[in-house]
């Protein structure tokens, strides 16, 4: 029997530990393309999360019915169906957002996060676990997109969610809302995320070594006393 991971862990791991953007570096195309403003990032993240959650639920429910040889094709058809639903709903209800996101809503089909989660998780787990995993991954994606979109919007056009927050005296950095700004900002964010993880690891390692030294000193002195 495989060791069962606690349910809360299935959800929480997507937020930081296995964050699809910062840790797995998956799904870069929509991340870079739509994050001109925070609202675009929110819309994109919600659309992706919807597809991820519904596809994960369906695929984990019928995972025993899908023959192994054609599983990738089956996953893609299921994902494409849900993406079509999102695309049509967005076009009908939020025409402006749909226009701003352009071809990137249909392109959710080839977002590696979604296919990756189906292959790595939903095809091997129960629907409830797959749901939690998909929600967690979606939340992680949401955090990444909103922070990237927020930074670009605040520095690039002085606003956040359309409300001006920086004074007029601040000259907006045009580069932040251009394609180059997306690459630079995400590159720096990934770098700092790595730096944070590396530092945490180093501190942990050092404290372990420290502990080990202390214990061995005590042992040595005990041994000497014993003699």
């Amino acid at each position, binding site marked *: 029997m495989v060791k069962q991971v606690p349910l809360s862990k299935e959800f929480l791991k997507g937020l930081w530990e296995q964050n699809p953007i910062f840790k797995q570096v998956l799904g870069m195309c929509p991340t870079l393309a739509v994050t001109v403003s925070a609202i675009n990032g929110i819309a994109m993240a919600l659309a992706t999360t919807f597809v991820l959650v519904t596809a994960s639920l369906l695929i984990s429910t019928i995972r025993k019915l899908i023959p192994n040889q054609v599983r990738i094709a089956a996953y893609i058809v299921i994902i*494409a169906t849900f993406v079509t639903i999102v695309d049509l709903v967005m076009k009908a209800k939020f025409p402006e957002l749909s226009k701003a996101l352009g*071809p990137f809503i249909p392109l959710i089909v*080839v977002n590696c996060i979604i296919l990756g989660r189906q292959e790595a998780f939903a095809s091997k787990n129960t629907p409830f676990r797959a749901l939690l995993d998909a929600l967690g991954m979606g939340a992680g994606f949401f955090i990444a997109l909103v922070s990237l979109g927020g930074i670009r919007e605040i520095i690039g056009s002085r606003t956040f969610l359309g409300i001006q927050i920086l004074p007029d005296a601040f000259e907006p950095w045009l*580069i932040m809302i*251009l394609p180059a700004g997306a690459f630079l900002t995400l590159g720096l964010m990934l*770098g700092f995320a790595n730096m944070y993880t590396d530092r945490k690891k180093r501190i942990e390692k050092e404290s372990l070594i420290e502990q080990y030294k202390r214990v061995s000193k005590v042992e040595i002195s005990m041994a000497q006393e014993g003699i």
Partner: protein
Amino acid sequence: MDLFIIFISAAIVNNFVLAYFLGICPFIGVSNKTSSAVSMGMATTFVMVITAIVSWLLFNLLLVPYELEFLQIPSFILVIASLVQFVEMFIKKVSQPLYRALGIFLPLITTNCAILGLALFISMREYSFIESVFFGVGAGAGFTLALTIMAGIREELELANVPASFKGAPITLIVAGILALAFMGFAGMI
């Protein structure tokens, strides 16, 4: 002249990778060595041209006459996936050296968003058949160009003293940002 503009626009001014952010995954993943970058670019260009032709035919001869436009996402992705399979089998049969050069890159192309993006752009912008072919060739050329330049820079970057936390994806993205800035210089061309 119009065709030439479409070609240049897709290849340089509105470069798929650096302006539209399509095909970032192979751009980061396969840009380690110049030789593999060129092979990947060639394989992608090849599939892009065929996709442009097939998706134009599919959209304008099948989906539009029968009012099935809402099926374009599933039908495009299925056509691309099977197309890549056929291309792989065909190349394996016809030319062994070419298969050895492109072989491992072909399956990766299915999930390359640049291919699906190309098909969607063609249907969205209502290109004619010839325009679609030129658009496909231009997009492929632009992808190859960006990938090769990036691979060249990354080969040099191996020797540079990059902070440990920034090695790999972060520094690649930062370099791509500078490259995108450089490509913006072409913006006034058209």
